[in-house]
C-alpha cells in the first residue's frame, strides 16, 4: 500500500517533469512546425546554468534566472539560424536543431567537463516531504515531514518521500498553470493562438509574426531550462542527461498526438507512471506472463522499464496512429 502510494506520487512528479519538457516542445511544434531536436540540449543547458548561478546567487534566483538566460539564447538561435532555413521547409529546420544539439553537448562538455557536477537542491528541499508509517501505534499513518524516530524503530515500517520530488511536481504544475493562463486569458496569448491557426491574418492585422515566433521559441526553450534546473538538482547534472530524456519526450509527443498539449499531458503522466511502477514493483516477467520462455522469462519488470515508453509508442502507432488525443490528419 505504501509502496503503491509512493510510486504513484513519484510517477506523477516524474510525469509532470516530462510534461514540462514536452509542453515546450509541443508549443514550438504546433506554432512553428519545428521539431526542436535540441530541446533536451536546452534542458541540459538549463541545469548547468542553474548549477553555475546557484553558486554565487543561491538556488532560488538561479531557478528564475537560468530559464530566462536559456530562453534568450533560444530566441537568438531562432533569430539567427532557424529563420533562415524556414523557407526551405521543416526537415532542414529539424536538421539545424540537430546540429545545435551536437554543438550544445560539446560546449557543455568543454565548459563544465565530462563528469557529473554536484548540483544539490537547497537545504529547504533536501528534507522529507511526508512519511508513510505502516502498522504504527495508530495504524497506517501519513506524517508531514520526517516521522519521529520512535515510529520508525522497526525496519521497513516507514517510507519517506523526498521534498524535492514533491517540489518538482509542484513547480511543473505552477509553470503549466501560468502558461495556460497566459495563453487563454491575456491579449498576447490571444495573438499567439491566432498566429497558430491564422498566421496570414495575424500578419495582416499588423502584428509582427516573426517576433511572435521568436518569443515562442524562446519561451519553449525557457520551459525546457526550467525543467533542467529542477531535474538537474533532483537527479544528476551531467552531459548524458540530454540523451536520457531526449528520445522520451519525442515519444511523449507522438503518443499524445502531435501538437496536442492535452495529449502530451496524458502521455507524460502515463509514461512517468509506467516507468516508476515498473521499477517500484520489480518482479520477474514470468509472474505476469506465465508462458514466457527462454531469455524473456529471465527478465524482470525493472529491467524492462527503459523499453516501456518505446513499446507504448509501437502500440499507439499500430492501434491509434494519430496519438491519444491527436486529430486525424495524414
Amino acid at each position, binding site marked *: 500500500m505504501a509502496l503503491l502510494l509512493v510510486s504513484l506520487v513519484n510517477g506523477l512528479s516524474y510525469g509532470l517533469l516530462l510534461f514540462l519538457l514536452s509542453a515546450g516542445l509541443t508549443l514550438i511544434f504546433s506554432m512553428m512546425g519545428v521539431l526542436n531536436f535540441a530541446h533536451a540540449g536546452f534542458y541540459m543547458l538549463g541545469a548547468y546554468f542553474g548549477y553555475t548561478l546557484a553558486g554565487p546567487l543561491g538556488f532560488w534566483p538561479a531557478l528564475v534566472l537560468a530559464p530566462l538566460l536559456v530562453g534568450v539564447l533560444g530566441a537568438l538561435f531562432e533569430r539567427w539560424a532557424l529563420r533562415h532555413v524556414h523557407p526551405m521547409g*521543416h526537415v532542414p529546420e529539424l*536538421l539545424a536543431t540537430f546540429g545545435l544539439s551536437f554543438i550544445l553537448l560539446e560546449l557543455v562538455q568543454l565548459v563544465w567537463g565530462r563528469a557529473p557536477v554536484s548540483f544539490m537542491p537547497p537545504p529547504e528541499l533536501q528534507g522529507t516531504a511526508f512519511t508513510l508509517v505502516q502498522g504504527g501505534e495508530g495504524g497506517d499513518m501519513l506524517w508531514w515531514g520526517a516521522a519521529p524516530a520512535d515510529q520508525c524503530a522497526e525496519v521497513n515500517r516507514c517510507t519517506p518521500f523526498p521534498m524535492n520530488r514533491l517540489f518538482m511536481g509542484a513547480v511543473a504544475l505552477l509553470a503549466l498553470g501560468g502558461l495556460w493562463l497566459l495563453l487563454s486569458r491575456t491579449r498576447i496569448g490571444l495573438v499567439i493562438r491566432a498566429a497558430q491557426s491564422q498566421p496570414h491574418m495575424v500578419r495582416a492585422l499588423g502584428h509582427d509574426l516573426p517576433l511572435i515566433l521568436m518569443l515562442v521559441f524562446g519561451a519553449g526553450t525557457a520551459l525546457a531550462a526550467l525543467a533542467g534546473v529542477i531535474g538537474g538538482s533532483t537527479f544528476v547534472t551531467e552531459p548524458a542527461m540530454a540523451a536520457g530524456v531526449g528520445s522520451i519526450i519525442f515519444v511523449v509527443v507522438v503518443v499524445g498526438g502531435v501538437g496536442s498539449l492535452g495529449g502530451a499531458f496524458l502521455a507524460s503522466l502515463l509514461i512517468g507512471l509506467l516507468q516508476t511502477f515498473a521499477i517500484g514493483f520489480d518482479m520477474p516477467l514470468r509472474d505476469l506472463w506465465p508462458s514466457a520462455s527462454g531469455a524473456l522469462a529471465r527478465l524482470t519488470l525493472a529491467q524492462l522499464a527503459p523499453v516501456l515508453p518505446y513499446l507504448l509508442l509501437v502500440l499507439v502507432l499500430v492501434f491509434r496512429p494519430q496519438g491519444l488525443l491527436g486529430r486525424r490528419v495524414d
Partner: protein
Amino acid sequence: MRGQPGPDPEPPPASLRAWALSALCVVLAPLVLDSGLSMTLLSQMGIAIIACLSYNILLGQGGMLSFGHAVYTGLGAYLAIHALAAINQGIWWLPVSLLPLLGGLAGLVAAAVLGFLATRKSGTVFAMITLGLAELVGALALMFPTVFGGEAGVSANRVSGPAFAGFDLASDLQVYYLIAAYTLVCVAAMYAFTATPLGRLLNAVRDNAQRVAFIGYDPQRVRHLAFVVSGFFAGVAGGLAALVFEFVGPEALGAARSGSYLLFTVLGGTTFFFGPVIGAVLMVLSQVLLSELTRAWLLYLGLAFLFTVLLAPGGLAGVLVHLGRSRRGPWRQRLPVLAALALAGALAGSGAAALLEMLYHRQLDAALGLELRFLGLRLDVGDPTIWAGAAFACAAGMVLLIRLRPTVRGWSDPQAQASGIGAPPGGQR
C-alpha cells in the same frame, strides 16, 4: 499540402566514362596506397559509402529524415557475425564472402517490419518515430545478451570455411577487394534504383505526396518500399563491417552511429547522387584522422554541419556543382570576390579554431603545460595577448564575411534551387 512542387530532380551528373574511371581508381588504389592504415581507411570508406548512399535513398530521394539508420546496418552486422561464428564452429556452411548479402537480408526484414510503422507518417513525425524505434531496438539489444553479446559484443573469425572464387580473406588486400566489389555493385544498383519507376515515384512523394496520391499511387506504400530497399543496402554495409572488424558491439545499433550517418550524408550533400560518397569519405577521414588531430573535432563537425544546413543546403556536392557551373558563366568577374570570401572565411575560421583549441587545451590538457601547437605556431595559453589576437582575427573575419554578403546574395540562388532538401515549403503539419 500547398505550395509549389520542389526542384526538379537533378539529371545525375554521371556518365559511363565517370563510372569506368571511378571503377579503375578503386581497382588501382591499393597499388598507390599500400600501407596498412590506408588499406583500412579505404575499406572503411567503401562500407561508409554504401551506408551513406542507402541513407540518402531516404533523406535525399524520399525526403525522409531517419534518426535510426544504424538499426539496419547494425542488425545486418549482427546476423552476419552470428553466421560467421556458426561457420567457425562448423555448424553451418556458406562462403564467407556471401555473408554481407545475409546482412542485407537482415536489414531488409527489419526495415520491412519497423518501416511499416515509421512510414505511416512523413516529415518530422517520421523522424520522431524512427528515433523511438531506434531507442527501442538499442535497449532491447542490451536486454538479450545471449543474442547481442551485451556490452562485450560478439566476435568471430573471418578466415574460415571454404575459399570462394579464391577469396579466403586472410590478407587486408583481399578484404579490400571484396569490399570494393560490393561497393561498386551496390553503388551501381542504387544508382540504377534512382531511375526505376519506384525511384521516380519516391522523388514525387518527397515533392508532393498529395499529387502522387491523386494520380493513384499510395505514398505510404512508396515510402515503405523505398525504406525496405534502403534497409537492404544498409544491411549489406553492416555485414561488410562485421567481416572487416570481426566484431560487432552494441554501439553498432546506437544513436551516435545513426547520427553520424545523418551528419555526413548532409555534409556531403543530399541533392546529388554522389554527395553521400563525399560525405562517407569525410566520415572515415574525420573519425580516424581528425579525431587524432584535435580533441575539439566533434564541435568542429557540429559547427560545419550547422553552417552547411544554413548556408549550403546542397552540401559539399552542391557547392562543387555550383562552382563547376559558374565556371562557364560570369566566373571571372567573381573570382576576386570569391578569393576575398575565402580569405575572410579562413581568417574567421582559424581565429575561432585557435580560441577553441586553447580553450580545450586549458580545460583538458592543462597538466601538459601552457604551450599548444596550432597550425605550426606555438601558442602560450597563459598569455592573454594571444587570446585577444585570436579573438580579433575571428571577429575581423566575421565582419568581412558580413560585409561581403550583399555581393554574394545574388548568386547563391541557382544553388539554393538545386539543393532544396526534402519536402517543399509548407509541407504537412
